[in-house]
């Protein structure tokens, strides 16, 4: 208990150090600190593992008994089998009494670990108190009725009416609980992986001069500016927003990299074999990624390679068959689309359309550009090493992690700017990002 509390504290402190890092050197220092950490950094989950295997064993025995009872009744002549069966049934018939304190006991262990405990001086006393409190549930008469109903209901539901035996229901519940415990233990054992991923992401952000930006209130203004954000009918939110700066040969510009999440709500009606109809609401989650920047060289144009998004306005077809197959182009007037979509830009956009999934390029009437797509690999490059091998991980983090795909997209956008500007006019200076 004490050990696990120390581990939880140490991990929380490492995570806090990671979040407090502002440079690559800080991250390297955190990894070195993990490498030389006096510990403990690994949980001792023996009681939970014992519970997990106990539940699996109990589930297997219950299922075996139910199977023998159902299919081989009378043909088994072993005395041992009937003795075991009697013993299991005895224990099982009182399960509504011992299950609540057992669950309360393990909850108490977890609470101790997290430092959330009753105002009692000693840990064993606190655990015993919570266990007894859990046991008090058995004194509520209604509880036993609900418990047996739940077990029978689970058996009926899972076997599709094939069995209503509480033994089967108990076996199923024990299996589900053991797999939940297994998942939770696995997550605790592998805590280094998500922390390593976070370190790698922060390193990529530092290396590419990307800084997180507050997302509060931005989605409403983006929705007013770009049709791209008018998706879904339930939730729309910016999961992440980063700001960076691109320095090109001819133009330098600020840009924002976003991760957009939207939800589509729909109602599904199903009819069963007896002709009864039921409706339920389904929520489909979708994610889009993209770049936002100022683009003072064109306005009011929308290019969509996503069949789910149609722009309004006059339709324009370019001279390139390849481009026309990829994008549907709409503009406030055909001339502005014709002026913007010069041959070299058509080639650049055709390249983008082929390399990105469901790409959309939108230039608002106010001269803001949004390049959006389904691809989620702009920031999610996979590290070669992690905190399980701190020495190799330090070496990897200390190097320069370039976001290759992001750079390619920014180069393409710079190319579009270079080809759209007027060479004989004074070039616009680098602009600060204006909030939409």
């Amino acid at each position: 208990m004490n050990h696990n509390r120390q581990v939880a504290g140490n991990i929380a402190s490492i995570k806090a150090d990671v979040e407090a890092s502002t440079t690559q050197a800080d991250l390297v220092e955190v990894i070195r600190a993990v490498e030389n950490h006096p510990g403990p950094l690994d949980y001792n989950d023996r009681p939970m593992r014992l519970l997990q295997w106990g539940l699996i064993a109990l589930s297997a025995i219950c299922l075996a008994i139910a199977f023998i009872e159902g299919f081989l009744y009378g043909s088994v002549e072993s005395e041992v089998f009937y003795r075991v069966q009697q013993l299991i049934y005895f224990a099982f018939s009182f399960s509504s009494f011992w299950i609540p304190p057992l669950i309360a006991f393990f909850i108490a262990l977890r609470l101790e670990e997290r430092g959330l405990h009753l105002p009692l001086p000693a840990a064993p006393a606190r655990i015993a108190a919570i266990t007894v409190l859990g046991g008090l549930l058995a004194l509520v008469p209604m509880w036993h009725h609900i418990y047996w109903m739940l077990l029978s209901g689970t058996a009926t539901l899972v076997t599709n009416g094939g069995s209503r035996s509480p033994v089967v229901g108990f076996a199923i519940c024990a299996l589900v609980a053991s797999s939940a415990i297994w998942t939770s233990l696995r997550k605790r054992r592998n805590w280094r992986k998500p922390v390593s991923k976070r370190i790698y992401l922060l390193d990529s952000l530092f290396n590419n001069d990307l800084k997180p930006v507050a997302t509060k209130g931005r989605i409403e203004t983006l929705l007013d500016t770009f049709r791209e954000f008018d998706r879904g009918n339930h939730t729309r939110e910016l999961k992440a927003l980063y700001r960076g700066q691109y320095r090109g040969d001819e133009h330098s510009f600020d840009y924002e990299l976003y991760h957009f999440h939207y939800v589509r709500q729909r109602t599904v009606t199903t009819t069963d074999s007896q002709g009864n109809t039921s409706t339920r609401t389904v929520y489909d989650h979708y994610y889009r990624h993209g770049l936002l920047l100022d683009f003072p060289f064109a306005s009011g144009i929308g290019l969509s390679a996503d069949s789910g998004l149609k722009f309004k306005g006059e339709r324009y077809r370019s001279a390139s068959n390849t481009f026309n197959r990829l994008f549907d182009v709409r503009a406030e007037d055909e001339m502005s689309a014709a002026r913007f979509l010069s041959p070299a830009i058509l080639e650049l956009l055709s390249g983008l359309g082929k390399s990105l999934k469901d790409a959309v390029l939108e230039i608002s009437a106010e001269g803001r550009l949004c390049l959006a797509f389904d691809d989620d690999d702009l920031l999610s490059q996979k590290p070669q090493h992690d905190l399980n091998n701190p020495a190799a991980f330090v070496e990897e983090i200390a190097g320069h992690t370039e976001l290759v795909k992001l750079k390619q997209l920014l180069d393409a956008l710079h190319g579009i700017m270079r080809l759209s500007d007027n060479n004989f006019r004074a070039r616009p200076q680098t602009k600060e990002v204006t909030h939409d």
Partner: protein
Amino acid sequence: MIESLILLLPLLVLLILVITIYNGIIGKHNAVDRAWASVLTQERQKNKIIPHVEQMVEQYRMHEASVLKEVTALRSAISDLGNGVDTAKLAQAEQRTTALLKGLQVAVEAYPELKASETYSQVMAEISEQQEQVGAAIRIFNRNVEDFNNAIQMFPGSLVNGLLCRKARIDSFSDSEARGGFDYSPNL
């Protein structure tokens, strides 16, 4: 009645197929025409540079007559471009642009002040971008030509073209000067 419908159905499907292929060929032919018009538009955009080059020559009192000669030759090559597909005239205009670019680069060596000036960098950036635009327009034209040629030469397009459209194969654009640099030429 049902038998007649069963007989008519394949004929109807065939008719729709022929109409689709016919329209596809005509559409692709028109796309080639439009892509060529785009090439000519980009080539004519070079007229935009000429006044700037002339202004530059005047402003810096450049004595190299060759630059002005190249400017005149380019202007004449651009005005010679017709509306039809004439790859030879386009190649000539392209050669004139390259000659002007080279002439400017040589002449400017004698005028370090001009070389460092914004006007010079603007003109050079514009010429380079226009060359890029013409190159892209030609590549788009060649891809559309490929689309069209495939449509009339591949079965069943070849059958529909032979019977109804009777369109001839179009040659893609190739630069004779660039081609002259290779010993190899594909036996197409």
